[in-house]
């Protein structure tokens, strides 16, 4: 039987504008992958968000990564530093 976990998600730049917030907690089923989480966010983040980068706990992460309770996910739209 799967338990739920809580993850924190950070939004930056125009992703924060689209979400109307800088960070948000989500309660999701244990075993959820990062890719599934992104799919969950996509309606509000926009269709381009599947091409963006993501990190978990300040490390770049791919869609297959299983999420754990307390993870910090960051949504990284195309960067524009410099």
């Amino acid at each position, binding site marked *: 039987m799967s338990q739920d976990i809580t993850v924190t998600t950070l939004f930056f730049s125009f992703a924060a504008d689209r979400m109307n917030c800088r960070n948000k907690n989500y309660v999701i089923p244990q075993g959820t992958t990062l890719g599934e989480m992104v799919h969950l966010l996509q309606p509000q983040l926009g269709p381009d968000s599947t091409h963006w980068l993501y990190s978990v706990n300040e490390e770049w992460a791919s869609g297959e990564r299983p999420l754990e309770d307390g993870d910090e996910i960051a949504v990284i739209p195309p960067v524009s*530093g410099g």
Partner: protein
Amino acid sequence: MDVYRITKEPIDVEEALQAIADPAVGAQAIFLGTVRNEFEGKSSQGLYYDAYVGLAEKELAQIGAELKDEFGARHVVLIHRTGDLPVGAISVLVAVSTGHRPEAFEAARHGIDRVKARVPIWKKEHWSDGGDAWHHDPTAFGLT
């Protein structure tokens, strides 16, 4: 000495020069990005920079390690400023020191290119006409 930093404070070029100094070094290359008064022909009053500080500083350090491996840089300083920056302010500094000059230019050039391509930092243009626009936002620059 190496410095990899995201900061709200003004960037201090002199600090960077001290960090890369070394008696075995013959060449130092420094790149400064500064806030322009226009972008693609439209007048601007300045930029706002947002960053994911923790990951950004890790990525700066990763880029610094690459510049040492690939171009023989002895010391690397990569600093990016965040917050509201007026026209003329330094937003980013890349400083490297190497034995000879060709590697210094190569390292600095790849340094700024990689910072711009990979580090989680975002800029918003404060247009002189009052509007704001995040760079790379498809809706902000008529890309959609």
